[in-house]
């Protein structure tokens, strides 16, 4: 696959390692009330859609940026990619 890196253009997916659902950006506050239940969901529950999926890729053999890539898991069409730190600063995976 080719990943459209926002700074570097199209890159071979073999330069990346794949983590999974970008929901991982929304890590719960461990010191807040009800943290245990929220962490259970955070760690174990995934939507796993057949279709549009926002997911985390690490450009390990590239610039070592984490990216949030929007990809169709059925067709592999990639609709876009942004720096994860920007996605996180904007407000997580939503």
């Amino acid at each position, binding site marked *: 696959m080719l990943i459209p890196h926002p*700074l570097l253009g199209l890159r*071979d997916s073999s*330069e990346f390692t794949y983590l999974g659902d970008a929901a991982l950006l929304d890590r719960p506050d461990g010191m807040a009330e009800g943290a245990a239940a929220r962490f259970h969901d955070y760690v174990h529950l995934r939507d796993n859609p057949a279709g549009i999926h926002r997911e985390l890729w690490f450009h390990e*053999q*590239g610039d*070592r*940026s984490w990216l949030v890539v929007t990809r169709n898991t059925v067709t592999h069409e990639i609709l876009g990619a942004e720096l994860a730190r920007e996605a996180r600063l904007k407000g997580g995976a939503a």
Partner: protein
Amino acid sequence: MTELATLTALGADAPAQRHAGALTITENAGLALASLALRRGTAQPAPFGLALPGPGGWAEGRGVSGFWTGPGQWMIEAPGRADEDFAAALAAEAPGCSITEQTDGWAAFEIVSDSGDAPIRALMEKLVNIDAAAFGAGRATRTVLDHMGVFAIRRADDRLAIIGARSSAASLWHALAETAARLEGVGT
């Protein structure tokens, strides 16, 4: 100065060199390297007068050069200064930045063509999934080469540098030398 002797990344006393047709591959054991990363609030410096390049770029300055390695991060090169504490020298040029010594983390190989850019492109085709036509002088990137992560720097139309992890220098040298030799064998 220390009495402790040094070894090259290939474990020898002197840097290695190989000729294969139009290409010459030379181990650049004298290359000093240090990483420069911006901290929050620091302005982008111009160490040794070097204008730090943007994503995918490599630039030359006075006795140093540098390539972009990530957002707010560059690798600074200083040819011939590998036996110094180059990181300390760089830190003085870039106050407030995070500087890390990298010289001995890497093995650098300089590849020179004696017939223009065609042999460089032919070599790149066999080594890395980077479009050589879009990788002209002044471009640099990390990528995968034979299962190893390397930096590739197009220093000129007829010059390419490949910088890989020091611990796998022998594997990288083998990949470069073998590939260049095979190109020579085919004659194209």
